């Protein structure tokens, strides 16, 4: 499967990474190379094989559904590039 410039543009947008128009073609080439490498996996007979979903077979622990942490608004916001009145501030989202 080879990736064309249009697909590269789509993937970049899915990943929310700005890619300049002129960089799309080389990007498509690079991604195609990596996908080609992955296509070796098509040689493997995977009939009846379950996909791995857990590295070590163990039941995940449960805990009481109670608040165990909180009231740390200033810590949560401490590293934000822009905050206003106790909120994260972002550029306008809707017109």
């Amino acid at each position, binding site marked *: 499967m080879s990736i064309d410039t249009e697909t590269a543009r789509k*993937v970049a*947008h899915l990943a929310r*990474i700005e890619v300049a128009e002129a960089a799309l073609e080389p990007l498509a080439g690079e991604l195609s190379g990596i996908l080609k490498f992955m296509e070796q996996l098509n040689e493997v007979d995977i009939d009846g094989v379950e996909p791995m979903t857990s590295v070590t077979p163990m039941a995940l622990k449960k805990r009481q559904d109670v608040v165990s942490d909180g009231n740390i608004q200033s810590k949560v916001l401490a590293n934000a590039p822009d905050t206003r009145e106790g909120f994260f501030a972002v*550029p306008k989202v809707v017109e």
Partner: protein
Amino acid sequence: MTDLTKMTIASARDAMRAGEFTSVELTRSYLDAIEGAKALNAFSTNTPEIALDQATKADVRIKAGDAPDMCGIPLGIKDLFCTKGVQTQAGSHILDGFKPEYESTITSQLFDRGAVMLGKLNMDEFAMGSSNETSYYGPVTSPWRRGNDTAALTPGGSSGGSASAVSADLCLGATGTDTGGSIRQPAAFTGIVGVKPTYGRASRWGVVAFASSLDQAGPMVKTVRDSAIMLEAMCGHDPKDSTSADLAVPNFEAALSGDIRGKKIGIPKEYRLEGMPDEIETLWATGTEMLRDAGAEIVDISLPHTKYALPAYYVIAPAEASSNLARYDGVKYGLRAKIGSDEGITQMYERSRAEGFGPEVQRRIMIGAYVLSAGFYDAYYIRAQKVRTLIKQDFETVFANGIDAILTPATPSAAFGLGEMADADPIKMYLNDVFTVTVNLAGLPGVSVPTGIDKSGLPLGLQIIGQPWAEADMLNVAYALETASKFDSKPIKWW
């Protein structure tokens, strides 16, 4: 007075308990060594005030006579570990100025036991790389050189700062993390010991995530004994990491008897690669003979799906990375790009991520987004997860047949030069992990042990793979190999 930077964790522990020197003296020696080693670019942040404060407190505990093994031991901490109030950027521009409000579980455990933090260690950006050249802080240089050749070599990656710092005697030990080989490959390149424990043995809480089903932290140190001591301090159940195993942590150091008589060591035929340098072949054969001489039974084994480990890894790891790294959006922390007055939040996201992530990280995020996207999810991601099941079953089969541990080369070559791979296909760089990545996919423990020197004077390592949760047995085999190989080469100081 002896040069304190030539100690090991074990010898420094014993000497401090005997009152031969204090942690403050030891710490000052290392702070001086770090100051004189800027050419290596191993440290990204220095924390001398924290170090001296921790050392002073450690001395009180040592004097009181009930100090834990790691008390007063100066360490370097990989920049991937969140350290409260101390710059933590995972080697990335996108985390510019990030100072966590919390401490990772592993560093908390080390500090509770009295360990001393000298500073944060340089690394490949978000642990994605095998040469430390993807770091926003610039590459780390290895203290090793090819004979009299002054060309700068890579310490490996992604834990390259950790490897360089330990190898150059800038700390007694360092934390590393290993997603596909990022502890074991740099350890092999720099002649030190690096351990990746079983998945779930050490908490991932507070460690910046790359690929959550593959990431594990571990120690990078000078000897197998030191690895046992430091690993024990790093492991244990953590309710804050749901994949952390609720199992008791054994006394790993006590397991180092060196007696491996009757142990079955598997030699997997699939690790004999076409075009592998003769020196690696020879090293592997020599290591095999050493274990046989120590009384182990050598058994030829087969791990038939080995060939598919790298392609499966390069589907699964980028897929998990694309999800994990979605959090870097210029809102909660780190870098926010400037946008025009006619632009909105989407441009802010996309530009922040374009400016903040380096090319290799961008490439992996995009590959991950692609293999998870509608229409390709089954063909790539689910297929890779099925192949991962087969890779794990390969190991389960040989362990069920009585194999105690597996011996392989750690890397397909010795360290290469910085910049040497700059124009290479990214896949060529990925091949560095060919012997280590299977272990992450199967969730097993692995250790890299320095075993020999190549013709240009560079260290080479062998890897021992253990059964799940059998780090103690694995380290004992490593100890037998270390004892037999008598590896004691050090880089000649040029920095």
